[in-house]
């Protein structure tokens, strides 16, 4: 369980996280979604108290992270930035972390096998590929058998097989009753993994909803209609909240009406329909819709800054 209340972090003049409140519940995978630079990694650092918030607070399993007597048993974290000494072997890295909690060597070996690093465990971590580094990070996160697992962009650098493995691992961890909080800028990945979504843009919360609801809300009323009497149909369904886009002769995309409303209007006007398809937006599109303003604002801001410089 992670609970953030009015979490805010400034770096100099820049506000990285802005009044963020949310809670992450156990038993499900919660996706933490946002474009790059939207404050996901900062939020995770605040949760681990690596950085101190400017305002607000965040607790893990009811306590500030620092107050836990055995932090690695409470939260297992994989941060986006590498957190491994490049000169140390994977085995010694995990052993050093394990020893702070008196976790036995047997557990270190178990984790190395679990993430598939057995053959390279004695190699220096600096020689690891991105994917191997990611697996080492996941082994560190799971070392303490934590009740809350928090992973920042965990599929970065993983191959398709690794991504599938990660997906199953996350679902499995949630099914065991753990709190699973996973950040990503890849909507498609989240659609497959996350049950619930916290979406942020420019440090602010944009949405906090189930993945299912997020998708259906975002798809809105977009219907694709194919008709030999397209011009006639366009006239029939015209209204103040309706926009019609002509994709090609005889093919329309209608915003603002359901497929039922369009079908009824066509029947009443005696217009033949060859296709009537309610279009579901992909999570990707839904996300783009939600964050477009924030991204555009940011781009405009950058231009201003450049002009000023």
């Amino acid at each position, binding site marked *: 369980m992670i609970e953030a209340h009015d979490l805010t972090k400034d770096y100099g003049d820049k506000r990285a996280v802005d009044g963020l409140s949310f809670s992450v519940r156990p038993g499900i995978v919660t996706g933490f979604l946002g474009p790059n630079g939207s404050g996901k990694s900062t939020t995770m*650092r605040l949760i681990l108290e690596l950085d101190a918030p400017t305002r607000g607070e965040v607790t893990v399993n009811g306590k500030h992270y*620092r107050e836990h007597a*055995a932090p690695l048993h409470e939260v297992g974290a994989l941060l986006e930035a590498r957190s491994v000494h490049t000169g140390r072997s994977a085995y*010694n890295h995990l052993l050093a972390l394990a020893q*702070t*909690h008196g976790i036995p060597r047997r557990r270190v070996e178990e984790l190395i096998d679990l993430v598939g690093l057995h053959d390279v465990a004695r190699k220096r971590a600096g020689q690891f590929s991105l994917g191997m580094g990611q697996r080492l990070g996941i082994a560190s996160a799971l070392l303490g058998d934590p009740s809350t697992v928090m992973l920042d962009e965990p599929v970065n650098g993983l191959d398709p097989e690794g991504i599938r493995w990660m997906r199953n691992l996350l679902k499995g961890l949630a*099914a065991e009753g753990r709190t699973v909080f996973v950040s990503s800028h890849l909507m498609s990945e989240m659609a497959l993994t996350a049950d619930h979504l916290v979406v942020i843009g420019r440090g602010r919360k944009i949405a906090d909803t189930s993945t299912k609801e997020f998708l259906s809300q975002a798809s809105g009323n977009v219907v694709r209609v194919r008709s030999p009497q397209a011009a006639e149909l366009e006239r029939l369904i015209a209204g103040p909240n309706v926009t019609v886009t002509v994709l090609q002769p005889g093919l329309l995309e209608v915003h603002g009406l359901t497929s039922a409303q369009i079908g009824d209007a066509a029947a009443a006007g005696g217009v033949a329909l060859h296709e009537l398809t309610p279009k579901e937006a992909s999570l990707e599109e839904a996300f783009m819709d939600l964050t477009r303003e924030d991204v555009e604002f940011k781009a405009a801001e950058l231009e201003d800054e450049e002009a000023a410089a």
Partner: protein
Amino acid sequence: MSAHAHVSQLPRTAHTGRVTQARVALSEWTKLHSLRSTRWSLLVGFLLTIALPVLFAAVTSSHWGSMSPHERADRHPLDIALAGVNLSQLAIAVLGVLVITGEYSTGMIRASFTAVPRRLPVLWAKTAVFGSVAFLLMVPPVLIAFFASQAILSRHHILQISFSHPGVARSVIGGAVYLMLVGIFALGIGAIVRNTAGGIAAFAGIFFVIPPLMNVLPTSWNNAISQYLPSEAGRQVFSLTHGDHSLSPWPGTALFVGYCALALAIAAVLLVRRDT
């Protein structure tokens, strides 16, 4: 997807150990000995501490016949025996800085502070573990350096000095004490600066740049101030003779310990307050 696929392969563990200072110290021991930079720095420190005295003793012995009385009077056997400490302190100081700045440059510090979010146990453990290792590994070379240089100088009675002579054992072991404290001081500097190059530069500035600058001051000021510099106060523990303008061995050492404590105290305050 079947329900079976939704069970993670993560083996459970009944273990629920809490973080203790002793456990963090064990972890820091693992971190220290598992890096090549540690082994190299300590090996270089070990060898320099022995090699330089052996070289000086050999040169002094072979040139003794052609030396003027004044030159001969200037040679002190203990200065020869502990000459290596002046050089090996660099290797120990660099390692002291690296023990902490290496974690910042690689990002390891985030893993360390995630495991031990109270942070201070990490600083204390690093200090204790690195200090102990530096001391224990530097005692053999100062002893070897003493007895080897004495053996090489055995033809010259005036350059013979007994280990049981007052102050000799203290000075020889003092060489290792000094190296340990230099390492701890450097670790404190590294924790304040958080950057390898900056930490080494700061250490070099305090130990090798400021002392000669004191010569620019009027002699009376120089005499009054220099003895209280970390490098001057620190070296008294491995000096047999003490001038009018230097502290005695134990007050000097106490002052150097004070400088180490100050560096660590500043580091501790910053460590808890700063973002990582």
